[in-house]
């Protein structure tokens, strides 16, 4: 990036003054290291604690049912039958759909915004996308029920069923608007801002020299992006995807509203399903009076915890196996060779598996079409996609090595750029619709009295002030822990211990917010015997940590190593290097991470119900119960009064505005010291 190169020039002017004694400097360094290690360990400590509590509290269910919980298909707490399979299945399927839809679109949008779009377009668009992480999940859910599901039901489901119905995934359309597919789509929309924002920052951090080198060697723009930029940004993008997956797995309110909550376990995506967090959200409030029911739900939370653990472990192994610049390469050639072989085998196996599955599905569909409509069946969308694919393969094959090869590459380049633009347009379009709906619905009840009156007098001031107080407490806890933890991981966390901490941050990120709320309830509320703003803020703060840790780390790792070497070479200590050189250079990306974390927790309801509890009047006291906008939004949305339902939208409009203001202010304050302006 051109700006970044120019950023590095005035570095010398800002270098720290030499310290007086080396002993003091060393002491400062080791002190920072110790403190940052402790901060970084907070995730590990938290998941350990949460894991132990969940394991202990769910012992009754395991004692009664043992492993059969995992295979049981019936969930009937009235008759003491506990089976978790439909929920596990639903969680897997809905998050998989979400990833399949959101990852390509999100990454394409990120590439477009960072590589192709002019800055007057890219900045506002990325700002818009970041803003959308702040829409409360209950509003995503409402939008899903009222707008998305009916639209899908009228326009999409039948079409999918008609044209791809021979594939089991799209067979057996039941006419219900709430389906597994709807849940997957809602989740995809929710995680899109995460993937796009973090990937964009990561891609922007790839040194400009690498791009120039690739272009100088004659690569087209797309080839440069594919072979250079994406390769360099791979680890960071994977981190973003894992963060997004964590959110998709743990999401409750939005999914609960659109998935249909049925334990049928159909192969078809056009049928309703059920997920583990949805079950927790549905039944936790009323389960308290039955020991078995409570323990069964905590067992579900525990299974979810273990699954998040396993998924993160698998993702980590996958990264290790696919990354080309393996650490072993130089140190242990034998081991490196062994790893390479293993990697090749696995990569080949994965690729073949994918090809076989896709060909299987396509063949299934084509055979079905042929049987139902004979040769006219060959004009259906599936077949047309196959023709197009074969045609491009054919052209690639005949032009390779001929004079037309370059022309073909250029066509490819143009085509891909259009595709990237379309993806960005699609992402922004969906998000703009959402914003539009919130604005139009919300403005109806927007009135000054909303800000000046509390809930009892028909306003929302108790929620607005509550949200600010809660987010303030959460930031005071989450931002230092997250930032310093992230710094530790990027600067000191290269070894196995660093990996453990990284891993625990990812697991913590995937724990559903309901469970974090329960944890704080058990750890704080029950101990102090009253609900408080502190407890609510703590729950939100815990949720902020992993997002900030992981984004900070990914961004810091991408700051050029020469910066560190330059500073250290001039005699600065490691702490000063980090404080004065590395962190300022990565400020923009760090702020994005903090804003995403803030946006995520500002829209949370579930963890506050049993910690902050809610208050119908305005309060600033940190040790009394307090309300939040999201709690009001949730209650109003579920109220049987139509005016209240409308005010829920107004609440989310206010919430988005708050995030907008915080975001603008933080950008104003954090503009890099080395920026050209």
């Amino acid at each position, binding site marked *: 990036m051109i700006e970044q190169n120019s950023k590095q020039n005035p570095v010398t002017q800002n270098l720290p003054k030499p310290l007086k004694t080396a002993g003091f400097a060393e002491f400062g360094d080791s002190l920072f290291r110790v403190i940052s290690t402790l901060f970084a360990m907070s995730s590990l400590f938290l998941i350990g604690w949460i894991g132990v509590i969940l394991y202990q509290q769910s012992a009754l269910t395991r004692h009664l049912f043992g492993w059969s919980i995992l295979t049981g298909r019936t969930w009937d707490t009235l008759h003491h039958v506990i089976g978790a399979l439909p929920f596990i299945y639903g969680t897997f399927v809905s998050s998989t759909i979400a990833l399949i839809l959101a990852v390509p679109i999100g990454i394409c949008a990120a590439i477009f915004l960072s590589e192709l779009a002019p800055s007057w377009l890219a900045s506002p668009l990325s700002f818009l996308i970041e803003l959308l992480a702040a829409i409360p999940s209950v509003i995503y859910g409402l939008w899903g029920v009222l707008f998305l599901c009916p639209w899908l039901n009228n326009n999409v489901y039948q079409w999918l069923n008609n044209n791809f119905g021979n594939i089991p995934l799209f067979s057996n359309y039941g*006419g219900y608007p709430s389906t597994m597919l709807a849940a997957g789509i809602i989740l995809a929309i929710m995680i899109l801002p995460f993937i796009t924002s973090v990937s964009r920052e990561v891609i922007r951090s790839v040194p400009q020299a690498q791009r120039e080198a690739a272009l100088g060697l004659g690569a087209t723009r797309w080839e440069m992006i594919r072979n250079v930029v994406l390769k360099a940004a791979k680890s960071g993008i994977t981190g973003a995807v894992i963060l997004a997956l964590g959110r998709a797995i743990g999401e409750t*309110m939005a999914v609960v509203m659109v998935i249909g909550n049925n334990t049928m376990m159909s192969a078809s995506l056009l049928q309703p399903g059920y997920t583990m967090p949805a079950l927790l959200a549905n039944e936790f409030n009323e389960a308290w009076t039955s020991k078995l029911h409570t323990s069964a739900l905590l067992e579900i939370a525990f299974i979810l915890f273990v699954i998040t653990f396993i998924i993160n472990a698998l993702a980590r192994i996958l990264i290790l196996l696919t990354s080309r610049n393996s650490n072993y390469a130089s140190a242990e050639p034998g081991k490196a060779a062994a790893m390479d072989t293993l990697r090749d085998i696995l990569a080949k196996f994965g690729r073949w598996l994918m090809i076989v599955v896709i060909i299987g599905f396509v063949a299934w569909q084509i055979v079905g079409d042929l049987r139902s409509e004979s040769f006219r069946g060959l004009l259906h969308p599936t077949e047309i996609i196959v023709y197009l694919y074969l045609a491009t393969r054919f052209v690639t094959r005949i032009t390779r090595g001929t004079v037309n090869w370059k022309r073909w590459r250029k066509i490819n380049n143009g085509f891909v750029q259009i595709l990237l633009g379309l993806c960005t347009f699609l992402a922004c379009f969906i998000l703009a619709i959402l914003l539009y709906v919130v604005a139009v619905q919300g403005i109806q009840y927007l009135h000054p009295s909303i800000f000046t009156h509390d809930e009892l007098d028909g306003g929302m001031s108790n929620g607005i002030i509550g949200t600010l107080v809660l987010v303030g407490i959460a930031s005071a806890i989450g931002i230092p822990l997250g930032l310093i933890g992230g710094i530790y991981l990027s600067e000191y966390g290269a070894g196995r211990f660093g990996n453990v901490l990284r891993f625990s941050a990812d697991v913590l990120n995937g724990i559903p917010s309901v469970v974090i709320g329960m944890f704080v309830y058990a750890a704080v509320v029950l101990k102090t015997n009253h609900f408080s703003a502190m407890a609510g803020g703590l729950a939100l703060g815990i949720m902020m940590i992993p997002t900030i840790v992981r984004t900070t780390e990914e961004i810091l790792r991408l700051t050029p190593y020469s910066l560190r070497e330059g500073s250290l070479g001039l005699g600065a200590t490691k702490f000063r290097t980090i404080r004065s050189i590395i962190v300022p250079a990565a400020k923009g990306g760090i702020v994005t991470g903090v804003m995403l974390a803030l946006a995520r927790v500002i829209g949370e309801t579930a963890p506050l119900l049993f910690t902050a509890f809610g208050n119908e009047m305005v309060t600033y006291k940190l040790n009394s119960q307090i309300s939040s906008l999201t709690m009001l939004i949730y209650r109003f949305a579920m109220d049987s009064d139509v005016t209240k339902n409308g005010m829920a939208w107004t609440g989310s409009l206010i919430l988005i505005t708050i995030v907008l203001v915080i975001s603008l202010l933080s950008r104003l304050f954090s503009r890099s010291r080395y920026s050209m302006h």
Partner: protein
Amino acid sequence: MTLRKLLMKGSIIVSAIALLVGMKNANAQALNVAGSTFVYPIMNKWIQRYHELHPGVSINYQAIGSGAGIAQYKSGTVDFGASDVPLTNKELATMPRPTLNILDVSGAIVLCYNVRGIGPGLHLSGPVIANIYLGKITKWNDPRIKKLNPYLNLPDEPIRVMHRSDASGTSYIFTSYLASVSKAWKDGPGVGKSPNWPVGIGAQGNPGVAGLIHHAQGSFGYIELAYALQNHMPAAVVENRSGNFIAASIQTTAFAVNSAVKKMEKDIRVSIVNGPGLNTYPICGFSYLIVPKFPTNVSHGRAMLDFLKWTMSDEAQRMAADLLYAPLPDSIRKINLRAIDSIKVR
């Protein structure tokens, strides 16, 4: 850059001062109440009015669900609770302090649908509703529905059954109705806030179910009376125990309440689903308050006592009727006041 630093420092100082001022300005301690979502609308109105009458007392009601309300009451984090299901004698015995059930409000549940060409007033009977929810009647033109509606042109479409996915008192009342009219339901899914539904899809809250019914052709689901009326949803007319087809309203719910007064003299914990009487609407239920007999906090206890008494006043009951909860008859109010008077605040 200096301006920015100045701004930053300024905002930090301002927010610190705001926080300090705020801490000093905190309001007097309020009563905390938690529980049922079913009574939230009327509770909210009552608390608001009561606060106008007695500015010194503020009550904070949080609708976190009946079960959670009972649990919070048990652990002592709230002054009293609200539950759609009264505490049984066994549960009362496990409470850390002597506890009373006090009847609160009653409400009705209606069956709504979205069928092409069919307006309000579809006739349904208990067994037919149970069979739809058991998955035994699957089409709108099933002979058993046709028999009840000989003049309607019912389409040959599947019935898309909807139910609440969140555990709720509404589901509890509805399933106790189903169990009272169908042995198959009683022996099968049973009565509960989140039973194992044999068919259909679940949606969150009344708005969720209403939204689905509005958008899906051929849908059928149960909703609280107030919500259905506000949203002008067509509701079924249901056959009661006397064989009459009754539409849900405050009056027909009040008949159900009145029919149970005799039994309630002995114990207010009665079920009024499928009650006797010519014009009784069959799907109704009560909501209860779970209150301590000997409140430990004297000032909170006094405030609670006064508030409870006030809810039995004519004004409070009229407010309930405005929100389509059936007002409690005098005889039941007397029973309640007797119970409230037995609360002793030292």
